[in-house]
């Protein structure tokens, strides 16, 4: 009996001590959601740096599955169970959560001076002009090439479309897949077309098509699509069924000489050990501009109904500063949106340099606000174009009609 009493007493005491300790270390706990499952380690390091400066705040980073992140996030926000801080997508996907008021407007509350107006556009709600997230990194669509294969088969790195096709033919003759790209996953087809088309439709097209003075049936766009159709001959056998994973495998294994993709592939390719380099998409002809397509990947936003808004804003302010940008560049091999970071990685520096001649990644930046999105239309159109179901003109008309009907 006495034993039992003693035990109970000590249990109560223990619980009390624990509770006391809890209050002593009282902290604001912030939850941080993301779709970057591959970046958990780096983010925890970045967060540790933040927590060092702000001992009263602790941040817990949770990465969800990328494909369903939007659904998970919007459902949670609608149900009032969202995180304090979150990775947001940009453009249309940002508007989807900013428009209903789930996000805290940031302009005026934090200092956004380290960001360019162009980059802020990706996280601004067009309806009210407020900025709802701090842009974190830009992505670039470009061409990766296997240096060893070019050397081995004595092929020159192409600068123009003609050279590109000549190089591709040379690889083909040597039984090397010129391109790793397939179209089984619609979005990889969009990235491929997004990287290559701007040099054909030109610098002005984006502005004209977004303002409405031109549409997608424009000969410039049709012409660009026709060039894409020519790629059929250079993609792997069975490219219709080649998905993203297979594409990467082909390039990493040295079975394909080139890979048209996003700059987000760089860390993976570096890690795989493949001896590669990058270049902007080939120019239409010698002397023409050689642009890369760029877009803002996303931003960091604050939940408008967060109970720890002050702490959350503190963290978001941190993401808009140079030290954060530096870490983003160093640890995550991203081209940070925030100015002032010194890009140490030569590959990233190269990407950054390509931005001198750049065109917006057309469908994401311009046409993902309504349904059907430009991306959906183009991805489907590309699959039809590259499986020979439709001609470039027919695809262009479908895209154009779709965009005009979108709401």
């Amino acid at each position, binding site marked *: 009996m006495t034993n039992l009493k003693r035990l109970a007493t000590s249990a109560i005491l223990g619980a009390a001590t624990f509770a006391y300790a809890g209050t002593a270390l009282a902290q604001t706990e912030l939850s941080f959601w993301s779709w970057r499952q591959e970046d958990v380690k780096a983010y925890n390091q970045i967060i540790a740096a933040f927590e060092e400066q702000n001992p009263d705040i602790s941040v817990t980073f949770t990465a969800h599955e990328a494909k369903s992140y939007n659904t998970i996030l919007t459902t949670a926000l609608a149900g009032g169970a969202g995180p304090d801080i979150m990775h947001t997508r940009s453009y249309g996907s940002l508007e989807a959560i900013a428009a209903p008021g789930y996000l805290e407007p940031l302009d005026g509350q934090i200092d956004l001076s380290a960001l360019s107006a162009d980059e802020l556009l990706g996280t601004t709600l067009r309806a009210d002009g407020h900025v709802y997230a701090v842009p974190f990194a830009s992505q670039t669509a470009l061409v990766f090439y296997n240096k060893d294969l070019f050397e081995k088969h004595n092929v020159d790195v192409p600068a123009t479309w003609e050279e590109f096709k000549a190089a591709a033919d040379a690889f083909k003759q040597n039984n090397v897949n010129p391109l790793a790209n397939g179209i089984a996953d619609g979005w990889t087809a969009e990235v491929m077309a997004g990287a290559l088309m701007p040099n054909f439709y030109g610098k002005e097209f984006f502005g004209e098509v977004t303002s409405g003075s031109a549409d997608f049936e424009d000969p410039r766009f049709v012409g660009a699509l026709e060039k894409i159709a020519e790629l059929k001959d250079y993609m792997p056998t069975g490219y219709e069924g080649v998905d993203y994973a297979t594409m990467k495998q082909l390039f990493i294994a040295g079975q394909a000489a080139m890979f048209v993709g996003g700059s987000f592939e760089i860390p993976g390719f570096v890690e795989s050990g493949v001896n590669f380099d990058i270049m902007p998409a080939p120019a239409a002809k010698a002397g023409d501009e050689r642009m890369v397509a760029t877009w803002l990947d996303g931003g960091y936003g604050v939940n408008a109904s967060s109970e720890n808004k002050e702490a959350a804003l503190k963290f978001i302010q941190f993401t808009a500063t140079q030290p954060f940008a530096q870490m983003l560049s160093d640890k995550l091999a991203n081209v940070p949106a925030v100015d002032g970071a010194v890009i140490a990685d030569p590959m990233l520096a190269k990407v950054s340099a390509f931005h001198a001649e750049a065109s917006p990644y057309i469908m994401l930046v311009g046409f993902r606000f309504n349904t059907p999105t430009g*991306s959906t239309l183009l991805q489907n159109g590309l699959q039809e174009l590259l499986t020979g179901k439709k001609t470039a003109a027919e695809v262009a008309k479908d895209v154009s009609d779709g965009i005009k009907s979108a709401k």
Partner: protein
Amino acid sequence: MSTLTEENYKSASVRRKRLRQLWIAFLLFPAVTILATFVFLPMISAIWYSVYEWDGLVRGDFVGLANFAEVLFNPQSNKFLFNAFFNNVKVFVTLMIVQNGLALALALLLAREPKGYRFYQVVFFLPVILSTVIIGFQWKLFLNPIFGLVNTFLRMVELDSWALPWLGLPETALGSMLIVNAWHWVGFPTLVFLAAIHRIPKDLIEAARLDGASEWNIARDIIWPLMAPAVTIIVVLTFIGSFNWFEIPYIMGGLEGSPAYSTDMLGLLFYRTAFGSVSAGNSDFGTGSALAVLIFIFIFTFSTIATRYLTSREVELS
């Protein structure tokens, strides 16, 4: 004295009756609760959602049947609806012929109890208990045009021209998925058919055999009509399964019914519309719910009609 006992008896029987009712209510409670929470509630809320305008996840104004009109009559949306619907029809017809036809053939074979039939019974049923997600991914790998087992095999036997990008061509993608689905599920109808065949008294088959019926006659004239209840179940389940088909096309073709919407299904279309996707656009609960309600009405109506019709041709085995 006698009336008193009668009354006692009566009140006892009333008590018993009440206790019985209470017991029934108690037993029904969990099932009704689960049904209400996971079936009726979502159904009612879907109907509720479908008559409002939605801005993402925020409910807007009451719009009546506008969402339904949008889904059914706007040429930009209904072309997806019709495309998906006809794909579902293709799925139903193909599964009826390929999956259930094969199941019937297997059941007829197994019912004759050939050597090792118990082993085969297990083998055919095994894929049914595997997870659809795993099967989808596994077969996606098998069907990979370059590294996949299927094409590697075809090239090995020098059928290079047959080594197609199965999941990449609009002509072959849906068919490939249906074969995978048939492989996954064929054991289930086989088992149901087999059980139905086993339920037919042996005497009937023997009587037919003495009557001079060939194996084909026996299958067509005796076994087939007498397994009608099993056929009803399988046809209705296949119908519902076909029009709710989601996992395999989602895993193997993606949310957009790739390639070029050739594997788009009502389920995928609903998911894209209601919840949005990275490239397809933003979520729209209004039209999404309208679509869900339409799909539900269609499946409910047709499976009810089919059940009525099919049940009418069933015979009791005396």
